[in-house]
């Protein structure tokens, strides 16, 4: 079984209007799926519906082969980890405490961290290259370091599915490449699947294996190989002109 997420026919409402119309989201093990689409298309809503943060009117969501409607939230947290937009921490915890939060759902609430937890935290810190930053408060980190610290927390949970909402927004180009590379490596090295909302078309087309185009609450899955024949659809949905970049992938070059 390689299907991590099998969500089909999702309908969801937000503030009285339909934000998801028969939307599907399929994710396989080792896959890096980009969710692309214009602002307000329903990308975040799609993620939130799968995460059960947004109730669905109809549809079926299976996570790692299990129907989520019968699954306790506590149980679901073993499979899914979520990194929302903006990397918000209301208090400037240190990096290690933040990463350790990824282990909380493994235990009864007041249990102490065990050896396996410390191992997982250590591994996660190493994977994102923040070992030297473990005692640093989050408030002293740069945007890129913060993004990596939040990925480490998700990794420490050892969840097989990582749901990320705009991981590279507000990062400089160097950190954008770094974070995208990190997410791609995670997919290939750790048997996990990553779903990421992305606005950076050039990064999505260079790093991701498949694209879920969301438009007005509806979804269309585009495989990496099928990309060239779907360029027209992407141009129409975004109202832009895209061009093949010399280093691979596509980038917006003007209005349509």
């Amino acid at each position, binding site marked *: 079984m390689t299907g991590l997420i099998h969500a089909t026919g999702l309908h969801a409402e937000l503030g009285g209007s339909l934000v998801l119309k028969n939307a599907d989201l399929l994710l396989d093990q080792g896959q890096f799926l980009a969710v692309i689409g214009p602002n307000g298309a329903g990308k975040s809503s799609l993620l*939130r519906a799968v*995460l*059960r*943060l947004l109730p669905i009117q109809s549809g079926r969501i299976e996570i790692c082969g299990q129907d989520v409607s019968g699954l306790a*939230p*506590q*149980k*679901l*947290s073993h499979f*899914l*980890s*979520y*990194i*929302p937009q903006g990397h*918000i*921490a*209301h*208090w*400037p*915890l*240190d990096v290690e*405490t*933040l990463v350790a*939060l990824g282990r*909380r*759902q493994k235990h009864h*609430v*007041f249990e102490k961290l065990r050896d396996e937890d410390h191992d997982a935290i250590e591994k996660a810190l190493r994977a994102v290259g923040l070992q030297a930053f473990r005692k640093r*408060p989050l*408030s002293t980190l740069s945007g890129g370091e913060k993004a990596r610290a939040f990925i480490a*927390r998700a990794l420490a*949970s050892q969840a097989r599915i990582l749901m990320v909402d705009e991981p590279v927004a507000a990062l400089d180009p160097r950190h954008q490449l770094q974070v995208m590379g990190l997410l791609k490596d995670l997919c290939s090295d750790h048997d996990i699947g990553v779903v990421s909302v992305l606005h950076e078309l050039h990064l999505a087309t260079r790093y991701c294996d498949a694209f879920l185009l969301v438009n007005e609450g509806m979804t269309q899955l585009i495989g990496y190989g099928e990309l060239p024949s779907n360029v027209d659809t992407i141009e129409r949905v975004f109202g832009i002109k895209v061009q093949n970049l010399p280093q691979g992938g596509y980038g917006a070059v003007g209005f349509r």
Partner: protein
Amino acid sequence: MKRDLELNTLLLLLLLVSLLLSLMIGQADINLSQLFSGLFSGRDDDPYRIIVQDIRLPRIITGVLVGGTLGLSGAALQGLLRNPLADPGVIGVSASAGLGAVLAIQYGLAALSAFFVPAMAMLGACLCTIALVLLARRDSSVLTLILIGVGLNALAGALTSLAINFSQNPFALSEMVLWLLGALTNRSLTDVLLALPFMVIGGAFLFAAGPALRLLTLGEDVAQVSGVNLKLTRLLCIIGSGLSVGAAVAVAGMVGFVGLIVPHIIRPWVGFDPQRLLFPSMISGALLVLWADILVRLLPTTAELKLGVVTALIGGPFFLYLVVKTRRGMR
């Protein structure tokens, strides 16, 4: 956690020393041997027994319980609302307890038995807690909870002013106003026994919310995906604060600023962790009230200073200093 052991031990030692000092200092200073002879004496006419057991001990125990409650509840509410300006007053419980006490004085219940004032205050706090839970049940957002709290706070404050406004009896009037200022004077062990169960149960609720408060650092969505039951956490914090702060106001009146400033002082010492903040905030709250009360007894003022006035006088400027300092640091 191991790294908090030193901090907590230090605070507990400080509390112990402060307790002893507080028992020794007052209108009649007594030394350590007199203190212990008074503490363990069984003779009714022993002056040291009267000073220690009848006068100072109930007052000091009340102070420790009230301070601990306010510190703990302030820390928990700031964690839940993720707002460093939250304090037990913000959810309206203190003002409602104050209203209950004022009504007890206004309608002469206080004249029947002194027990009615704290009992009515507790009733006011419980009603406010129930109203909060019912009103916040449908909408889960933190902002709604704060706004409902502010509304209830204003309503209870207005009704309290109304009671004072209509009061015909100057004695009752002065009693109401003085009661609202907050004080530990003339506390008996009966008051302590009335408040204690509510404080213990409420405190246990707040500690139970600790792990969820830590995950809430990353926002409600992440906490929920991580398996936190948001509704339960909110209930634990509201009911926990309602019961314990209600009991604190019932026995000591309005003692402001403790719940607001104590978590701010402690936060840097526990790595800004909302869960690790709870215990040291409780002990520090007790310390703050204990020392404010020692100050009340030491300062040679003509009328005795009210405890709530002192905590506000220390708390206000100190809070401003903290805001300027920490906001610069957190940026």
